């Protein structure tokens, strides 16, 4: 369908993040949230530790395609150390980006490598899986 963006979508940065195992682990005493893409069979579990309103530790386990894995790893790296409010703001901008709407580039620094994701409707849900799960973990919402 859309050729533009395929090189970016499977760029070295994204491939590296997908392979990066740093955030792929369980953590004890953390808040857990599970996300699934039912039609794909992809699943992730997110582990979130918040202290003094700051994201102290965030990791995930599960399986999925390169897009979903890279998105989850990038999300964990990016949110570590952010306040809950900041995390929620980022989440909103990411959702806007995934829907092809205007979004604040400064707030999603680095993750805008996925800015073309809305042009791949079949892959958007791979990208947003981790973020919807985050919404559940932060706000008890399962979108």
């Amino acid at each position, binding site marked *: 369908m859309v050729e533009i963006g395929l090189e970016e979508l499977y760029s070295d940065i994204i491939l590296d993040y997908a392979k990066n195992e740093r955030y792929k682990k369980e953590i004890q005493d953390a808040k857990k949230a599970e996300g699934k893409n039912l039609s*794909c069979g992809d699943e992730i579990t997110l582990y979130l530790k918040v202290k003094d309103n700051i994201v102290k530790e965030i990791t995930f386990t599960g399986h999925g395609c390169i897009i979903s894995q890279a998105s989850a790893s990038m999300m964990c790296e990016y949110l570590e150390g952010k306040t809950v409010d900041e995390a929620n703001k980022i989440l909103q901008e990411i959702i806007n980006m995934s829907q092809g709407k205007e979004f604040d580039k400064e707030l999603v620094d680095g993750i805008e490598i996925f800015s073309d994701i809305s042009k791949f409707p079949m892959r958007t849900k791979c990208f947003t899986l981790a973020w919807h799960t985050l919404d559940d973990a932060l706000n008890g919402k399962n979108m």
Partner: protein
Amino acid sequence: MLSSKEYEEIFPALKRKINGHKLIYLDNAATTLRPKEVMDAVNEYSLNHHANVHRSTHTLAAEATKYYEDARSKVANFINSETEEVIFTKGATESLNLVAYSIANSNILRSDDEILISTIEHHANFVPWQQIAKIFNLKIKYYPAKSGIFDLSDFLKHITNKTRLVSITALSNVTGQLIPVNTLIKQIRNIRQDVILVVDGAQAVPHLPIDVKKMDCDFIAFSGHKMLGPTGIGVLYGKKRYLNEMTPFLFGGEMIDKVSTDGTTFNVLPYKFEAGTPNVDGAVGLAKAIEILERIGMDNIQEHEKQLTSYALKKLKELDFLEIFGPQDETQQSIISFNMKGVHPHDVAHLLNDLTGIAIRSGHHCAQPLMKEFGTSATCRISFYVYNEEEDVDKLCEGLNKVWEWLK
């Protein structure tokens, strides 16, 4: 078989370019491409003859009824059944739900009777049985297919003197393994006469000759859209002996005999199971699709796909970065599942599409119990139909090499 140029005339989608590449459609197990002739037949009916069936006495109504009932005869002839044993549904899923629910609701099964199904089934032939067992408090047993491969003699060991219903796919929608249903039915009947045998023919009916009398199944379910027809039309064949005994699945118009505040009696077969205004357009399209398949010849289709599948298996086995599932021998037909080592199937399918114009399927294929047997959550699946040829397989292998270079 016809040449690829001839097929391009029959199936306009084959002329499409995807990202500048000629479309190679290898997702036929999901749904097949549409022949122009089928859509022309549907249009002709819709524009000139459409009316509600079986109800009114005007000309259009009579024509519509004739189109619809001719389609039913066409289907009956295609599978060698009686006309009133053909029930139109919206697809294999509805057909299987209809049998499961109606049988469970008809006191045909006693509470200690067992239903036997296998772990290679499509969810449409798994979940309905599991759910009716729960609702009606029946017993259900699962034959665990080791490594996802169905083994007849192993399966037969699961038939006990309690087994009263067996529902089995005739062709796995994931591995393409052809289940020897004719032999299976004969052998089960040798063990126990009164076992009800249900066949999920969604993948078999489009690809090989089916004769329900020879097969001696009690029910077979299939879908129009997997055999060149429109979506929203499917068939349930059932033996009269059971259909007569079964309570209707849906209630409403056309399926009744007498209705009063005292109660309701039901219409004769097959109308008893066709409540409401049916999908006449779909039936007309399915009849035309069957005409096309008969013109090509079901034996020819099976032979063509057997050759193509064995060619593809040979070629795919040469790619050492692939893991192939299923028996990988001559018992496989039309469908092959595989994974690229360390790469998720969605990535493979997406890149194949965008880089080469090849359409394949990725995911769990509505067969999660089977995925579990394979120890994976998803696979890549290719599936052939009449218009595919060896060149498509060669292009697929080139494409897979390209994707592997990108992602390894």
